[in-house]
């Protein structure tokens, strides 16, 4: 592998952090979902890098699952947002505060 493992981890960590900050700081539901997707892909990147580093296929196989989960999550999430938008005309996460204690 030409790229050092440390670089892969650093990039993945950076991506994960950016995704987390995006998910926590943005208020638009679509952007939160995108942040989560970025975090999932960061994790996938670590799996790929680790698989190459240790020369096993387990990590690569796992990435397929992660992509499937991410796709399913995006699909379900987008449908939910679509219905929410239709009901209230609002995609702002803070508008949905009926669980406030």
């Amino acid at each position, binding site marked *: 592998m030409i790229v050092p493992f440390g670089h892969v981890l650093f990039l993945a960590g950076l991506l994960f952090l950016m995704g*987390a900050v995006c*998910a926590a700081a943005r*208020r638009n539901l679509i952007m939160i979902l995108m942040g989560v997707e970025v975090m999932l892909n960061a994790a996938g990147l670590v799996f790929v890098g680790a698989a190459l580093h240790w020369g096993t296929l387990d990590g690569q196989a796992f990435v397929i699952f992660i992509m499937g989960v991410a796709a399913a999550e995006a699909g379900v999430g987008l449908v939910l947002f679509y219905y929410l938008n239709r009901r209230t005309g609002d995609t702002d996460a*803070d508008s949905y505060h009926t*669980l406030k204690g």
Partner: protein
Amino acid sequence: MKSLLMMLLLFPLLGGLYHALLGVRLDRRWSEIVAVAAVAGSLIMAVAAAVVAGGRPVIFPLLEWFSVGELAASMDAMYDPLAAVMAVLVTFIAALVHLFSVIYMRREGGYARYYCYLNLFVFFMLVIVTADNLLFLFLGWEGVGFCSYALIGFWYRDAYHADAARKAFLVTRIGSAALGIAIGLFFTAFQSLSMDYITHHAGMLSAGMVLAIGLLLLAAAAGKSALLPLSIWLPDAMAGPTPVSALIHAATMVTAGVYLLLRLYPVLVLSPVAMGVTAAVGAVTALYGACSALAQHDIKRVLAYSTVSQLGFMVLGIGAEDPTGGLFHLLSQAFFKALLFLAAGCIIQSLSGEHDIFRMGRKVRHALPKVYGCFLIGALSLAAVPPTIGFFSKDRLLLTNLTHPSIFHAVLWIIGTLTTLITALYVFRLFFLVFYGGPGPKRTQAPEPGPVRPILVWTLYPLAFLALAGGVMNLPIGSWNFLDRYLMPVAGLGPPLEASPSLEWGVRIGNAVVALIGIGLAYLAYGPRPLKEKPATAPDSMQNLLYSGFYLNKLYHRWVVRPYEQAAAFLSNRVDHGGVDAVMTGSGRLASRWSMNLRLWTTGRLSTYLGVLLAGFTAMLVILALGLL
């Protein structure tokens, strides 16, 4: 025999259950019939059982109650001559009182409750009388206490009556506690609670044990029989309806303590100290009751203090080693006191509820001539004028004290004779004020006496007959001492010490003269006189001292009730509210303040939750990565 005893106990119990379960739903007339029939049936059974037993002691196990280890409490009945005499007396008086109640209480509500407790009262007293096992006796003992509480507080909506009932209940509990301890000591000493066994093996007890048990039994009797210093409940117990007072005073309540002393006399007699204390308590109580009775205004309170005094006489007799004399006086007191109370009930009903003797007068005598006659017989018997039963029983007790070898009993004899004088004085003060008093300052507002139902007066006749002629059952002449001989088989009960005939007759004539002097003094002070003249009065301080019963209530209030209230207030305010509650409310407030802080986290904003989730996850990972845990 066993079935007779069973029925003796079951009749009043079933009567009580009938009133408790069905009494309110069915007709009032049925309640009255059932109540009277239950007790009358009991009376027949008591007499029949006495005839069948024929003076021999018989013991029957009635029911198994419970047994724990060696402690076996079975409901055993013992029917010996002593129990037979008491059972017949209790059911006889109770039957008359029930009959009297039917008329006397005819306008009162709550008849089912009244007859229920009245029947149960008789049942529990019969349990005491027939019990052989001490725990079975204790059951009756407590049951009697409860029924007296319920009946004294019959008009419970009135605070005065409810307080009197509570007072009677609490004060008699002191005696019950003493009896409970005594039962425990008996069990440790004998491993048995059968009184038959205990009285026949009393010699096994050590001297200290005998003294402790003797004093505890005396304390138990003092609670129930209103001896000093626990006599304070009896005058207040007058708050109950008059027939209940008659029942309490003559048959079912106050005699229980004396009966306990008679039952366990073979134990008591082993300790000279306990016997001396018993006699002294009896003599002092007799004098105390008589003096207090001198200054009362309420007709029932005079009779109540008189009961205290007469109970003192009975205990004095027991303490002077003449238990049969004590029982004889118990019988005589039951007859004349029931008579006086029921007659007082007639007078009170005739005057539509008036109790104050200064508001009664010659009008009462004119309106109720038959009651007047019966009351006179009762008063003569109480004043111990020959040839009434009261004379023979009291004469015997005084003679026993004089012939007792100890000089201590000579002192008690003097107290007893003095009490006889005061007794005659107070009872005829009562008699003259009630039947001869002219219109005094308070009499102007006195109600007009009305007629009473004849049945009320009829119930007085058998009692009047017994109060007058009942002495025949135990005359001190030759072989006329039927009661002495009948009671011979009972452990510890026998004839009194022999005295020389001259001493005997001297004391007898002396007693009669003393009683007559008392009546003469009462006549001089309170007898019939011209209308204008005021009756004699003692100085105010003396009057107050006697009226309040030597301030005994105040003493109790000062030294028992108030310290108790202060301790309760301290425990309530400082310990409970200031201590326990403060810790509880403090911790609760702390928790709620913390939860207020935690509440701020649930903003309802998704970003906050995510941020917290990430921060927490990061913290966990950092801890794991650095190997902090």
